[in-house]
């Protein structure tokens, strides 16, 4: 039997010490009719057989590593140096839990403190928590924070239609019991600022947005702050290697998904929700926070702090119910940011920027395709295609082995036949050139 060490002798000695005759006797509180059901599960496998089964399943998948891939839309291919995974494999990190006992958890605590510092640097904010489940749930928690900042007196939330569709859906799921009025994303043509009024708790915008475009954060911040409302910005951390941080425009809360920072694709999770804000809102924020302190000898150390906001102390009055978050993904992001550092992250961001613009220029030259260029973009851009995106993607894959872009018609009625293409440092020029060839052939 895997992973249980007792011999017959151990078991009998332990039963005797407890004062029972059999293991079954330990379960007499369980109602008899329900006790010891026969579970219909497939027979147990040895480690070797389990490996074969899992390898067979994994090999049944076609992956983004099998050929050129231009799919992004909230989950990105970025290069993670080998040092990242080598530390994710260390048992001292991955077999620990939440650092409730700081004296034996300084490794986890200090790495979270370093992560918090780097997230602040990246976003231009003053305080970062120790993570949320992903960008979508971080956005939902930011909305709840904004509602709490206004002491539940403001009930309106304005959200840009170009915030990731799944983020917007998750905000609605999370807040369905709170009686909020969530507006702004039903009409892509309308001006968001027109929705902001004295009942508005916050405005949520993503930049670069779901279409890859950089938003005018300054004018949004000015309009939102005139109504004493909060500006929540969802950002791509890789873009912040190059772009001005949302904090520089006066954002009140910056959230996003840190998946691109050492996390990998993993079919949608686990990813990393980051959340940063201003010190004045820190007591309203959700999630774990690590703070610096001193030990009994005056040495520097780190502990979880401001727990009085949290569920295990405050119970029904907590800022959130969050407990377990994304510890190991935080470590991945901290190591990623340290490894790339000041120059490296800028270099990754520039590679994305230049390659995406090269790809956009080449695709724009093709007959039948038009790149939308009404706003600046970072690593993703929108292409109007000569036919349904699904048909084009099928051709790209079947004939060229290319995983094409995201079909924007899925979430936007006015963007039928529009494809969202993503280009990162992981796409060498040859792949871009092949994509252009393939799109040209598909159109003809």
């Amino acid at each position, binding site marked *: 039997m895997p992973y249980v060490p007792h011999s017959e002798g151990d078991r009998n000695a332990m039963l005797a010490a407890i004062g029972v005759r059999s293991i079954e006797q330990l379960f007499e509180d369980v109602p008899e009719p329900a006790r010891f059901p026969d579970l219909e599960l497939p027979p147990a496998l040895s480690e070797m057989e389990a490996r074969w089964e*899992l390898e067979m399943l994994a090999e049944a998948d076609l992956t983004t590593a099998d050929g050129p891939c231009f799919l992004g839309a909230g989950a990105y291919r970025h290069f993670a140096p080998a040092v990242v995974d080598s530390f994710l494999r260390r048992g001292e990190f991955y077999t620990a839990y939440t650092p409730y006992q700081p004296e034996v958890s300084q490794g986890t605590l*200090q790495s979270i403190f370093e992560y918090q510092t780097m997230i602040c640097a990246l976003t231009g904010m003053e305080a970062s928590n120790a993570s949320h489940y992903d960008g979508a749930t971080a956005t939902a928690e930011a909305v709840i924070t904004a509602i709490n900042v206004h002491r539940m007196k403001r009930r309106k939330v304005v959200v840009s239609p170009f915030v990731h569709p799944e983020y917007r859906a998750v905000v609605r799921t999370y807040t369905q019991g709170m009686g909020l009025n969530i507006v702004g994303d039903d009409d892509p043509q309308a001006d968001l600022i027109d929705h902001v009024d004295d009942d508005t708790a916050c405005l949520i915008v993503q930049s670069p947005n779901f279409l890859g475009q950089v938003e005018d954060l300054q004018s949004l911040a000015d309009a939102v702050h005139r109504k004493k409302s909060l500006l929540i910005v969802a950002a791509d951390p890789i873009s912040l290697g190059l772009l001005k941080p949302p904090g520089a425009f006066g954002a009140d809360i910056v959230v996003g998904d840190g998946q691109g920072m050492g996390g990998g694709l993993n079919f*949608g999770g686990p990813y990393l929700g980051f959340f940063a804000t201003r010190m004045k809102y820190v007591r309203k924020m959700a999630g774990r926070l690590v703070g610096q302190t001193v030990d009994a000898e005056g040495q520097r150390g780190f502990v979880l702090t401001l727990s009085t906001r949290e569920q295990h102390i405050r119970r029904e009055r907590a800022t959130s119910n969050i407990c377990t978050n994304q510890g190991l993904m935080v470590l991945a992001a901290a190591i990623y940011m340290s490894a790339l550092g000041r120059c490296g992250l800028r270099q990754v961001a520039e590679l994305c920027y230049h390659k995406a613009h090269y790809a956009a220029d080449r695709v724009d030259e093709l007959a039948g395709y038009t790149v939308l260029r009404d706003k600046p973009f970072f690593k993703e851009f929108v292409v109007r295609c000569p036919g349904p995106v699904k048909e084009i993607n099928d051709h790209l894959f079947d004939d060229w082995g290319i995983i094409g872009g995201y079909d924007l018609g899925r979430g936007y009625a006015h963007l039928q036949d529009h494809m969202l293409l993503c280009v990162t440092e992981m796409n060498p020029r040859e792949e871009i050139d092949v994509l252009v060839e393939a799109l040209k052939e598909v159109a003809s």
Partner: protein
Amino acid sequence: MTEPLIFEISRPGRCAAQLPDLDVPPTDLPDDLVRDDLPLPEVSELDLVRHYTRLSQMNHGVDTGFYPLGSCTMKYNPKINEEMARLPGFAHLHPYQPVEMVQGALFLMHYLQEFLKEIGGFAGVSLQPAAGAHGELTGVLMMRAYHLDRGDEHRKVVLVPDSAHGTNPATTSMSGLRVVEIPSDERGNVDLKALEAACREHGEQLVGLMLTNPNTLGLFDEHVEQITRMIHGHGGLMYGDGANMNALLGVARPGDLGFDVLHYNLHKTFSTPHGGGGPGSGPVGASERLAPFLPAPVVAVDEALSDDKVEFYKFVNPPKSIGPVKAFYGHFGVMVRAYTYIRMLGADGLRRAAEYSVLNANYVMSRVKDTYRVPYDRICMHEFVCEGCFDDVPDVHALDVSKRLIDYGFHPPTNYFPLIVHEALMIEPTETESKETLDAFSDGLLRIAEEAHTDPDLLHGAPHNAPVRRLDEVWAAKQLILRWQPEEE
């Protein structure tokens, strides 16, 4: 032993990553949008490796020593799970790839749903929730939606026992519902009289009861069938907090006991690692009447494309879904690990895990209960709670006992929880620990009790041989230093 911050070993010009040269013609950067500075550290690869290696050495994990943290199920995390989650056919999948490209992954998700349904006795399972508390939010929103769907708009009250984990009341508030706390009786069960009174008082407003069973005292509620009948009789639903599911694998199925919805913790019960505080995974199981409300999407067999030989899988949205609770499909990487674990244990192995977890907890309790008062002296399940204090040495507290355990090489138990036990130490050994480890830990606890009497300052000053001495949590909350900032010139 302290380690400098990564910022303190940073030197201008260093970088631990090598990136390719630009291979396309550059485009002008949008100068007005470009940031001036990016204050990230600059370190060499070797300095970075030494830094994080030293940090890792300042951590206690299951791989380094016994970790009896109550209600957290710190069992061994098998190495094979880690390798399987990193197979390229799983790790390099994009969530928006067409389903025909990812049938292997969907097979795994489908069968993990099926396994969890069978283990819990439920009609439907969603793998989307990211952690236990996230599963709770999912389940409570589902209960709320169920009542609203029936036109029952007045149901706003959720009953929560006083022994419950703090996430239960916090989740209830987040869902826009109201908490009513139910006391425990003298045997550690839900107090039936108080429950009945609450049901009568709030009958028409009752959403349901959130019950952890075994509860946080490590006790299986002796009246679970009566409780279920009472809640259902008042039109309420039973929420099961599956944090303690490790005791029930192959022992009892919550669905059979009358629970309508329950979250599992793959990172506790199904051996996936705790990661220093996540990622976890908190799938939710639901009975026939609640399954239509599960979060979207779930994996289902696509009958139209399947035949006798090959099943084809697709994502579907349950008809009355509360919506998605996170982006994409859940923590797929964690699911691969849990699937591997269930395949290797099978039905017999899962039952054996539950049995030995209960055997181990009862064994440690039998060894220490004459020295550390156990407030509810019954056979426990996978964990037990004792008082970490002594009548004759009033200034020694559970925290002192815990910190002294560090000097003996053990991770402390959960402290000061559940709140209803004075100076609580909540001890969960798990099934993967040997008798020798349990004996060493029990011996340690007994010696600490002696030390408490002979040399209490040894406990007050503990830990003595950890990387740092006892840390000042009040100082941290007062100073509120949440990030490193360069010293001003």
